[in-house]
């Protein structure tokens, strides 16, 4: 008789505010082979984890069920906890009552609680039948691939190369540097951008470990952590690149708000990047107005792009420094200038006479043309009246938006993107710069609009993460492979044809023909399990007994005995 412990997570309010935790705990206690059911504010917190370990010890548990967020992010953590508690990590079952319950039934607590009960019952039913497993290891191709040659990609590639790791950098354009190429000077320390990128590019060009593919695109991807294979195509050739890890650094682009504020039609109205070019040519305007949050923090694009404020402050200061008596205004909804250095240039700007006016989304500024320039009419919320500002240029601080093809890239590498098209990392705190797909990593503005410093740190972070499997040289393969029960196998061969990896053969053993699974080839898809007419094929962690028990549990708790 198994001894199961059920641990139900409040996830702060994420679950507890919808699902009746107390009811759920009481329900779980009554389930067959459940010895103890407890709840924690955050099961994944050290406190939560240690309470699980403690309970496992006190109650001599041999199986753990956690009802919380999702296995795709937290299973490894809880499996580790099981191991620390001396329980084979495959005797752990995850029940998602957040993603699959509280978050999607926010308005109906009772229904959510009822559903959570059934999900927990299903999880417990499976857990009771779980068996301990031993994992197998597989070798790792000692090569990394970085997709995207912007600052982030360059940083990641450089730091991989610096570790002596064979690295392919794939850039779809003809030149490296990405968005950086269009920026002249970077704040807040007012360095020349080239110093940054050139240094990195040099490091790569000088290294024998680095292979740079210009004008190239990834067209297909297959495999798993340690053994990916990418097809990279440039106009003249196509090559297959085996890789142990993949870093995604495809960056983002600046939104060009065609039409808005006469952008594109009214001369003198331009985006930040266009203005950067102007400054780079030394054409410093006497009068300039920056309008912040153009196209962001509004419906359809609710997020704050975070880099635009600093960019405007930087450029405002550049004007003032070049022409001390220039008239510069920044029309904003809030100034997002966080961090010590940025906070400092904000203060410097206001001291040096940059005007800050606050407008609201409901009453945006308007621009009219005059013979010698433009007039920006804005309602200043702080002084509660309309103000007209004469100016030569109007700079629209627009947000960074995902690359048009980010969704395609996501499908290609089987990694998720959010509703805007930015890539979703596995978990902001637990697995930063990782995807839930092992061996694929994300960094820079492809993930979220990021400042250059963030891009650099993330690039390095991703490189560090990617180097782990490659340095280890081995990855443990999850014990979810299939096997055939010789007593049941009728050697009909259905599994053989069903296996996408040709991992199964009909072998003859002491006169009896029986299916045999090559575990190094088996990737654990379980196609053979479904093909087997005689229930001889079983997948570790997903046996027909276990899944059958889950169905029975659902039937029992949803429909009563039938």
């Amino acid at each position, binding site marked *: 008789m198994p001894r199961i412990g059920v641990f139900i997570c409040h996830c702060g309010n994420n679950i507890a505010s919808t699902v009746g935790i107390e009811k759920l705990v009481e329900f779980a206690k009554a389930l067959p082979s459940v010895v103890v059911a407890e709840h924690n504010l955050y099961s994944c917190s050290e406190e939560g984890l240690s309470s699980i370990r403690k309970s496992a010890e006190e109650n001599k548990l041999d199986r753990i069920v956690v009802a919380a967020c999702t296995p795709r992010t937290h299973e490894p953590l809880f499996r580790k906890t099981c191991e620390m508690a001396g329980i084979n990590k495959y005797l752990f079952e995850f029940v998602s009552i957040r993603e699959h319950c509280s978050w999607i039934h926010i308005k109906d607590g009772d229904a959510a609680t009822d559903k959570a009960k059934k999900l927990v019952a299903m999880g417990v039913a499976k857990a009771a039948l779980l068996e301990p497993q031993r994992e197998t290891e597989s070798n790792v191709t000692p090569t990394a691939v970085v997709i995207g040659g912007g600052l982030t990609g360059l940083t990641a590639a450089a730091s991989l190369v610096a570790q002596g790791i064979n690295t392919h950098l794939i850039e779809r354009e003809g030149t490296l540097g990405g968005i950086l190429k269009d920026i002249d000077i970077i704040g807040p320390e007012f360095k020349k951008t080239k110093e940054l990128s050139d240094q990195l590019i040099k490091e790569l060009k000088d290294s024998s470990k680095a292979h740079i593919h210009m004008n190239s695109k990834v067209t297909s991807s297959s495999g798993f952590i340690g053994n990916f294979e990418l097809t990279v195509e440039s106009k003249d050739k196509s090559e297959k690149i085996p890789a142990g890890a993949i870093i995604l650094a495809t960056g983002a682009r600046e939104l060009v708000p065609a039409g808005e504020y006469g952008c594109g039609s009214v001369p003198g109205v331009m985006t930040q990047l266009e203005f950067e070019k102007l400054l780079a040519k030394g054409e410093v305007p006497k009068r300039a107005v920056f309008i912040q949050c153009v196209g962001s923090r509004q419906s359809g694009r609710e997020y704050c792009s975070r880099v635009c404020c600093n960019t405007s402050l930087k450029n405002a200061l550049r004007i003032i420094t070049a022409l001390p008596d220039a008239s510069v205004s920044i029309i904003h909804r809030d100034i997002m200038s966080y961090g010590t250095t940025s906070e400092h240039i904000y203060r410097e700007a206001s001291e040096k006479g940059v005007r800050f006016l606050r407008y609201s989304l409901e009453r945006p500024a308007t621009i009219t043309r005059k013979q010698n320039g433009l007039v920006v009419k804005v309602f200043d919320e702080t002084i509660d009246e309309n103000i007209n500002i004469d100016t030569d240029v109007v700079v629209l601080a627009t947000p960074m938006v995902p690359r048009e093809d980010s969704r395609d890239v996501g499908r290609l590498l089987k990694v998720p993107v959010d509703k805007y098209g930015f890539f979703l990392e596995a978990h902001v705190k637990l697995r930063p710069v990782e995807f839930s797909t092992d061996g694929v990593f994300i960094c820079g503005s492809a993930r979220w609009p990021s400042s250059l410093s963030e891009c650099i740190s993330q690039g390095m972070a991703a490189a560090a993460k990617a180097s782990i499997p490659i340095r280890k040289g081995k990855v443990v393969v999850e014990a979810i492979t299939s096997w055939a029960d010789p*007593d*049941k196998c*009728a*050697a*009909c*061969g*259905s*599994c053989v*044809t*069903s296996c*996408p990896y040709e991992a199964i053969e*009909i072998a003859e053993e002491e006169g009896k*023909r029986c299916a045999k699974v090559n575990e190094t080839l088996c990737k654990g898809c379980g*196609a053979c399990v479904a*093909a087997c*007419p*005689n*229930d*001889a094929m079983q997948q570790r962690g997903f046996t*027909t*007994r276990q899944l*059958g*028990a889950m169905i*029975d549990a659902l039937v029992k708790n949803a429909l009563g005995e*039938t």
Partner: protein
Amino acid sequence: MLVKLAFEERGADHLLIMREEHGNVAPAMISKGESADGVRLDIPYQLVTILENIYPWLSKGKIAIITRRCDEKALAELVKRKYVDEKRIVKIGLACSEEQIKKCRCNDPVPSNVAVGEPHEGMKDDELALALSKMSHEDRFNFWVDQYKKCNKCFGCTLNCPVCFCDDDCVLEDRTFVAEPNVPPGLSFHMIRSFHMIDKCIECGECERACPAEIPLLTMRKLLAKDMKEVLGFSPGDEMTVSPLNTSLEGEQLEDECDEC
């Protein structure tokens, strides 16, 4: 005459056949030299099933077997899965009587080479099948539930089936898939069997003949055979084409390893 054909002309060592014994008709295996009096071909024993049972024990020798068209197809399914070695089988084609064809509502009654019996036209379709496909879901459901309620779980349908391979530890004996502890078994029993046979059944009708509850199992088979043809364009019964059920969308051909050529 059959003995001569099997042993002398076709060089078989054994002959699987039906004959009269104790006032009944029995399946019998005659070996070379033995006489075969009282042969009867009018009682449709499923000889391929019997062959399947005894084959593992016959380490060598050629076995001649009376094969109706359905038996031929059944053999093909067995050969395809390497359950029997085609080279060891001598098929003696039997063309079914009109009466038998009627009983089986058989649309494909003539074996590839007829050694005994007069070839007859097959039947277009199965009346009940037609009626069922015209019914509403509800009526059809009620019909089958009434039929299946008579099931007494004898497993005659699987045990006598020539293309049911795994009658040791059949999933239908397993509470995971057929939850009911008593008889009759629930619907899953019949639906799972229906699905398992969908890429194998050669419509010999033995399941129906063996059913003590006289459930029209052959009719269900015919309906699903039609569905299989419609959905994946496949009909069981020839050596070459592997079941499309488990292949990729492109499908796969069975690499035929012909060691003669």
